[in-house]
């Protein structure tokens, strides 16, 4: 093992990944399973057909407390946090003063506090950002004694109900404090695959017991980061640092749905002036789904040209969608070429590959709506 590899952090499930025969790779400073012996293609299909268990303990779990943590958080994000009912969760974005996206996150109203889940690669800077900006208004605690797993797929609910019966009736984007084989867990009905499922937050010490219990169910397979990426791409979900970053606003990123009416009218979040203007006047470029013709995938950073050969953008995520049975991608194009169906040319290894702007998701989302 190289020095760089030994310096990597590990999750509480590291030994289990190795025992299961995972291929481990460095990801956001952690030694993480990219795939298990099943392989990315079958892991992807298994998650779409049955249920997959993902270790996402590298992600940041943060507790926000204070007199009015929702009002405090609203000064940093454009989402409606004050209107979030207890036990409900929402996707939102940390923005900078230019309206650029610092990170994307999930916010849950857990009653006496807000519970945030942020990206692994951003968690240190997110916590520093929260502490700096909310110094007088909220206490920020990085919960690094917790593990996080995701159980995703059409059979996730049936499996989870064997351990946590009340999980079956949880609504999509809701939160439940529960007991799993005698240990406390926080469940949310959410995920990053386009399928029904849960994220499970628990004490680090209980993670392996819970993982083994879930993997012991016949429907469940361990799924690595490789399939996590192809699943989220087919579902049309953004990967921070690739599809959205500090150079893209929520309007560029086609994430207007994260900007509710009240916040659009009232403002009070970073970059409001720019975003408000973009909502009225439009932007010069936009994130779109892209469907290459044929079977050759177009990867991240692939150049996109219009019908005249003018460069109009680039792919930000691209690969093969096992469920779509075809290559799938997303990227930014100039606004004139952003309508669904617009023909594009992708330059793959110096050769033109025909493609079209496509609607996302590439496969239907199957969230539980109760």
């Amino acid at each position: 093992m190289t020095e760089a590899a030994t310096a990597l952090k590990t999750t509480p499930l590291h030994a289990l990944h190795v025992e299961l025969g995972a291929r481990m790779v460095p990801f956001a400073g952690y030694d993480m399973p990219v795939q298990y012996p099943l392989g990315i293609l079958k892991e992807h299909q298994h998650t779409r057909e049955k249920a997959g268990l993902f270790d996402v303990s590298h992600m940041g779990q943060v507790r926000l407390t204070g007199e009015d943590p929702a009002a405090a958080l609203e000064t940093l994000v454009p989402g409606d946090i004050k209107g979030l009912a207890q036990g409900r969760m929402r996707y939102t974005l940390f923005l900078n003063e230019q309206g650029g996206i610092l990170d994307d996150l999930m916010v849950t109203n857990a009653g006496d506090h807000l519970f945030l889940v942020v990206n692994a690669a951003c968690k240190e800077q997110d916590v520093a950002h929260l502490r700096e900006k909310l110094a007088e208004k909220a206490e920020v605690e990085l919960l690094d004694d917790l593990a996080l797993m995701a159980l995703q797929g059409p059979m996730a609910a049936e499996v989870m109900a064997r351990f946590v019966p009340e999980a079956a009736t949880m609504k999509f984007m809701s939160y439940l404090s529960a007991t799993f084989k005698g240990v406390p867990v926080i469940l949310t009905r959410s995920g990053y695959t386009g399928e029904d499922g849960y994220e499970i937050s628990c004490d680090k010490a209980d993670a392996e017991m819970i993982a083994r219990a879930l993997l012991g169910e016949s429907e469940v397979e361990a799924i690595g980061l490789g399939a996590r990426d192809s699943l989220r791409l087919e579902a049309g979900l953004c990967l921070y640092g690739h599809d959205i970053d500090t150079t893209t606003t929520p309007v560029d990123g086609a994430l207007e749905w994260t900007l509710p009416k009240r916040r659009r009218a009232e403002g009070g979040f970073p970059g409001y002036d720019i975003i408000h203007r973009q909502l009225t006047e439009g932007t010069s470029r936009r994130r779109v789904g892209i469907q290459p013709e044929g079977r050759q995938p177009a990867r991240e950073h692939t150049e996109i040209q219009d019908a005249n050969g003018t460069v109009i953008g680039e792919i930000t995520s691209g690969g093969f969608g096992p469920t779509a049975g075809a290559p799938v991608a997303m990227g930014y194009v100039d606004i004139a070429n952003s309508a669904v169906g617009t023909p594009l040319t992708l330059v793959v290894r110096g050769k033109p590959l025909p493609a079209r702007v496509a609607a996302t998701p590439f496969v239907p989302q199957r969230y539980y709506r109760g």
Partner: protein
Amino acid sequence: MTKKFTKDHEWVQVDGDVATVGVTDFAQSQLGDVVFVELPDAGRVLEKGKEAAVVESVKAASDVYAPVSGTVVEANQSLVDDPSMVNSAAETDGWFFKLQLKDASELDGLMDEAAYKAFVEESH
């Protein structure tokens, strides 16, 4: 018939002055599930060590290099139709292309099966 191997994890099997080229079983296990291959057209002249084909798995794209110089006489069309054959039959039916050898002495610089096996174990 002799079978030789490269450090780029290609195999080449020689029958007379025609060499059949593919990627090794070790290479396919590292690539993961292959979803696309691009093969050279018949008639194309390949130079030893230069890009000859492309293989794409779910996760990444990789180049396949010409292990020896020569002229392509046939590409494996069934591999284009079913790229998963790279995974299921890397060193048999999953061959990539056949070359008319330009200089048979180029084969001398390649590894035999035992040397390749040792190379894989040593480097991975």
